[in-house]
Each structure stands twice: as C-alpha cells, then as structure tokens.
C-alpha cells in the first residue's frame, strides 16, 4: 500500500511536470522578425486600431500617447492593473527586442518567459501579421518614456498562479479566423475586428474559466464589473446600417444621437482616428456576420 502511494505520487508529479512542460510559455523564433523593417507611420495606424491606449494610459487621462499603465480592471477573477508599456527601459518596454514584443502580442509570453494574463488581449492579437507587429514596435518606440513602476495584479487563488495559464492557453488561445471573409474589404474588416480591434474580448460572453464562448461569439455579454450589459454586434443584436456603425465609430453618436459612454467612449477615441475606409470595412464585416 505504501509502495502504491509512492508510485501514485511519483506519477502525479511526473504528470504535472509533463503538463507544465507541454504548456510552457511559447516564444517566436527571432529570425522570423530579423529581416522585417518597421515603419512607424504605418505602425501608428496599427496602434490606433489596436486600442493600446484605452487600457494603458493613466486613469482619466486624455493623453493617448502616454502609456504609464495603472488603470484597474475589475473582474470575477480579481483586479487586473494595466502595466507600463511606455518606452521607459526600466519600467516600460523600451529595452525589449522586436521578437520579445512579438512573443508578447502573438503568444502572451513576457520577455522573462512567463505567461501573461489574457486581460491583455493576445487571444485576438495572435491573429496579427508579422509586418504589423514590426511596424507597431517601431511606432511605440517613438512614444515618451515614463518612469512609473507597474503594479502587481490583485487576483484571487487559483487565478494568481501564472503557471495555470499554460493550460488556459491550451484550451482557449486560437489564432484561426472566426468567420470567413469573401472580399478584400471584408478581409480588412475581419482583421480590424478579430485581430487588432479585439472587439470580441468584451462583446462575447466568457465561461467560468474566462474563455470566450464560441457559441455566443459577439452576441453581447454581461459587464465584468457587475453592472450593465455589453451589447451584441451581430446583425440580430444590432440593426444599425453599415453607415450608422461607421459614423458611431467616428463620432461616438448612435443613430438616436445619444453618445458613446462607458468603455466604448475610449474605443471611439482610438478607432475614430482610422481612415473612413477602415471604419466602413469594420461596419461591413459586422453586417456580414451570421
């Protein structure tokens, strides 16, 4: 009996070790990015489409180019606190390599080789193309360095154990497109919605582990902070015309001439800087869903 227990614990330990090894944080191969040249001007478009500032600017700041982090996001798993992603070499991401930046966006892995929490929407950014990653990196290096220390997330057990995120990623991280896109415009719209804009991160409900519910993709979700509801974006939930959607993303005004509030006000502040063609591509893609 004692012997059986010993073997059982050995196998359990081995099993955990194998699981941890199989779900260890993934990184990109640096040679993949070595030959790419970043263009900061194109990177600025990626930056606005990606909405980086919405989460990483300071609380109640209007400066979308100052990214010291510090904003708190209340969820059922605890509070996430956005880190400093300014170009500061100590507190921000100034001393990263482009490959480290790519590993963060595409695999949710930090330069220290740890898993990031999916509050950082790498589940969407995983669909980014390499050139956009490189261009975004070029642009973000031009942003001001802010010597502000990042704060630790304040999470409940077991969510505060980062190693469990490997299993989470195995279950929920998938860089395939969710929906088909038949024309170049719909492809662009899909890229803006499913990859950069990461719309589904809020507009899709999550399961108990925080993974997106594929069956209810973009159909609206309860607000993670408890009060209110995030509306659905599929045509059965949103009957606005494509022009209405594009105008809303530009100005914040709904077809009833109410204006965006809540977190969506931040989204309009960044998506509103894209070209009219990009906003219309988003709108046409949303109208083509289902």
């Amino acid at each position: 009996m004692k012997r059986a227990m010993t073997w059982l614990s050995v196998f359990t330990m081995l099993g955990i070790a194998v699981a941890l090894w199989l779900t260890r944080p993934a990184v990109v191969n640096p040679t993949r990015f070595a030959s790419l040249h970043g263009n900061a001007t194109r990177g600025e478009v990626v930056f606005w489409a990606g909405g980086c500032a919405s989460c990483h600017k300071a609380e109640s700041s209007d400066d979308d180019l100052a990214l010291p982090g510090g904003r708190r996001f209340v969820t059922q798993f605890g509070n996430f606190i956005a880190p400093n992603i300014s170009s500061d070499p100590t507190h921000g991401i100034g001393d990263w390599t482009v490959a480290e930046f790519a590993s963060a966006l595409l695999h949710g892995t930090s330069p220290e080789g740890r898993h990031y929490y999916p509050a950082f929407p790498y589940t969407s950014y995983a669909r980014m193309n390499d050139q956009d990653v490189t261009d975004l990196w070029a642009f973000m290096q031009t942003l001001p360095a802010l010597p502000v220390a990042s704060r630790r997330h304040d999470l409940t057990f077991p969510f505060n154990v980062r190693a469990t995120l490997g299993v989470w990623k195995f279950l929920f991280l998938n860089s395939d497109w969710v929906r088909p896109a038949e024309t170049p415009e719909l492809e662009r719209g899909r890229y803006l919605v499913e990859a950069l804009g990461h719309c589904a991160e809020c507009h899709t409900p999550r399961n108990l582990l925080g993974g997106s519910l594929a069956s209810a993709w973009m159909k609206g979700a309860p607000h993670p902070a408890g009060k209110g509801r995030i509306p659905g974006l599929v045509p059965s939930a949103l009957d606005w015309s494509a022009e209405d959607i594009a105008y809303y993303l530009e100005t914040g005004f709904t077809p009833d001439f109410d204006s965006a509030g809540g977190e969506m006000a931040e989204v309009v502040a960044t998506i509103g800087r894209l070209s009219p063609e990009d906003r219309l591509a988003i709108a046409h893609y949303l109208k083509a869903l289902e």
Partner: protein
Amino acid sequence: MNFSKHFALMVSALTLAGAMLAHAGGHDGNPAANARQAHMKLYAFNLDVIGAMAKGEVDYNAEIARSTANNLLALAMMHQDAYWAPGTSTVELGNETRALPSIWEDGSRFGDIGVQLIEAASQLAEAAGESQDAMRGAIRGVGGACSACHRNYRQR
C-alpha cells in the same frame, strides 16, 4: 343660459382641467433631472439634423448646417448650474437620473469637459457652413466632449 353657452363653458372647464393635469404631469419627478434630460434631447435633435447631412442621408445645406451648429453652441453655452444642482445624482434620485455622484466630488473634471464642449461646438459652428467635409471633421470633436462626460459621469 342657452345650450351653446352651456356647451362652451363646459368645454373651457374641461380644457382648463386638462391643462392643469398636463401641467402637473410635467412636474413629475425631479425638476433638475427633467431639465437636464430636456437639454440633452435638444442636443440630440440638432445633432440628428447635422448628422443626417454628414452621413449623406439628406443633402448638405450650408445655411441649415450653420444655424443648427449655432443651436448646439448656444445650448452648450447656457448657464446650467441650477439644474446640475448638488443632491440630484443617482444616489438621491435612483432611476430618475444617470448622473453619477462623482460629478459633484472633489477633483471632478465635469466643468472642464463643459468648456471642452463649448470649444468643440465653436469649431463646429465655424466649420458647418463651409463644406460637408469640414463639418464632418468638426463633429468628432463634439462627440469626443459628449463621450468624455458620458464615459466618466453617466451611469452605464
């Protein structure tokens, strides 16, 4: 007193009663919250006129665009202190309002955003009569001011 006189009296009495009832109805709820919501409706009506032209749903008309933008500027510049009275937030009025108490707390940027709206509305008033493109460009500033306030001070 003949029949027609009788009838006329009755009609005027009923009209008066109806008017008084309507008057009382208009005073349902908190007057400050009602005034704020009425003010918002006037913004929305004028934004609808401008927005329809911006989206191309109706033809752009410089004169209508200019006068409508001037309405928005006039609304933004109205003195509203009385109807943003302290003690009229969601805490005191519940579902009658979506105005969060943080409007009246220390460090509130509510007043600054009001100034931001006046500036954006001034730019729209200048641009609206120029061209459809100039008008559309300036609407985003107004929308930004609206959202800045709704982002922080309106209940979701």
